[in-house]
């Protein structure tokens, strides 16, 4: 700190002696978003990877259930990117919520999806939103989807092995056209035309792959996205609730619809019977 430097106070020494005396500085509890944006409180002297295993090991007595489980998908086509997600959050065997927002609106032309640990995705995508805004202010132009996804991947790589669980798709429209990147907490970052992430992704891929063409119309693409999520929620216990659909266009994203899978079930059933 500037004042400490002026006074000639060697804060490094002070910090070290505090740590060795009490196992943590006295302001540790308040060292959160207000004062330190890059430090996390960690039990002193304990490897966080090991200690966190206690909380996630099913055989442990102190297992904390974090909100988990999902189906999300996104695909590029000639008119942009369709993003479709379910809305169920589970903590272990219990359904915590059927109304979770799994599409995170980073800014008006960038969307991020949430799969894996809900808190991890929500927090880091919020950090990404801040970084994107800083980029915009510094460079006087919008950040590209490739750069935004790389920022997130690099941030999360620092915590590799510490138990973060995040599988997200960064979708946007930039100078190169529609962009879709898959980023996860293992450090993967890939680009492709179709992605589905989550426990229900296997079911969604089946429907998505059989119906996908690059030259779909907007209505067909929306229907395909909705149908894929529906089928995933039907067969995956950890997915359900409502289907939230977004369309990423050149002018930014647009929220299309929110449909309960309960209604979709009877709608598709009626369509099948008509044939």
């Amino acid at each position, binding site marked *: 700190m500037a004042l400490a430097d002026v006074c000639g106070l060697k804060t490094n020494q002070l910090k070290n002696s505090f740590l060795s005396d009490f196992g943590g500085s006295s302001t540790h509890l308040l060292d959160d978003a207000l004062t330190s944006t890059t430090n996390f409180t960690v039990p002193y002297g304990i490897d966080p990877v090991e200690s966190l295993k206690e909380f996630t090991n099913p055989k442990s007595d102190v297992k904390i259930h974090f909100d988990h489980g999902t189906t999300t998908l996104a695909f590029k086509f000639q008119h942009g990117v369709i993003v479709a997600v379910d809305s169920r959050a589970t903590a272990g065997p219990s359904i915590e919520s059927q109304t979770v927002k799994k599409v995170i609106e980073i800014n008006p032309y960038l969307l991020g999806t949430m799969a894996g640990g809900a808190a991890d995705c*929500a*927090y880091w995508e919020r950090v990404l939103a801040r970084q994107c805004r800083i980029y915009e202010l510094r460079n006087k132009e919008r950040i590209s989807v490739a750069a935004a996804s790389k920022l997130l991947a690099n941030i999360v790589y620092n915590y590799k092995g*510490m138990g973060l669980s995040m599988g997200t798709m960064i979708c946007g429209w930039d100078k190169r056209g529609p962009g879709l990147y898959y980023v996860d907490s293992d450090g993967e970052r890939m680009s492709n035309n179709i992605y589905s992430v989550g426990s229900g992704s296997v079911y969604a891929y089946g429907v998505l792959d059989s119906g996908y063409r690059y030259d779909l119309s907007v209505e067909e693409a929306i229907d395909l996205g909705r149908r894929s999520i529906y089928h995933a929620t039907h067969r995956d216990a950890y997915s359900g609730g409502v289907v939230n659909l977004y369309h990423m266009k050149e002018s930014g994203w647009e929220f299309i619809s929110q449909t309960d899978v309960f209604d979709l079930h009877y709608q598709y059933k009626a369509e099948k019977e008509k044939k």
Partner: protein
Amino acid sequence: EDFVVVGSDTRLSQGFSIFTRDLPKTYKLTTSTVLGACGFHGDVLTLTKVLNARLKMFEHEHHKKMTTSEIAAMLSTMLYHRRFFPYYVYNLIAGLDEEGKGVVYSFDPVGSYGSDGYRARGSAAAMLQPLLDNQIGLKNQQNVQRVSLSKEKVVNLVKDVFISAAERDIYTGDAVVVHVITKDGTTTERFPLRRD
């Protein structure tokens, strides 16, 4: 709706022993927001202490009280900053938003949150949440008209919910403390429950 109701039982137990029968798990944060926190009580106390400190800091800096949604967002980041050494606390924030409508935010131990109309948390949550889904969310009821619930009905529902919980959950009982938050302030009532 323009009010929020939040209640908690008052029993503190560990294993098969009861430590005290008079420990409500709800904490008033501002005149329009109440925090409900359950789980490991040591972390609950620390979290409440830090939360109150942060609220005071905000007031000193900005000369106004924090609104419910601001408190919820702040609590989320506070919890996430202990991602690698979590607060073992399941939180609920109930209050009135800027427009005076009631809102409930529920959290997981590391800060993921969302707003619901109603939520049950704690040892008997799995038993109580479906009851709330049916009575307040009107789930799985056919051809029911959405009638907005009055304050008396909601308080009675909360009482019934805790009576049911005390019947079947050993960790719930002794008494219920219910807060009703309206734009005129927060009223608190206490009802006895089974002490066994």
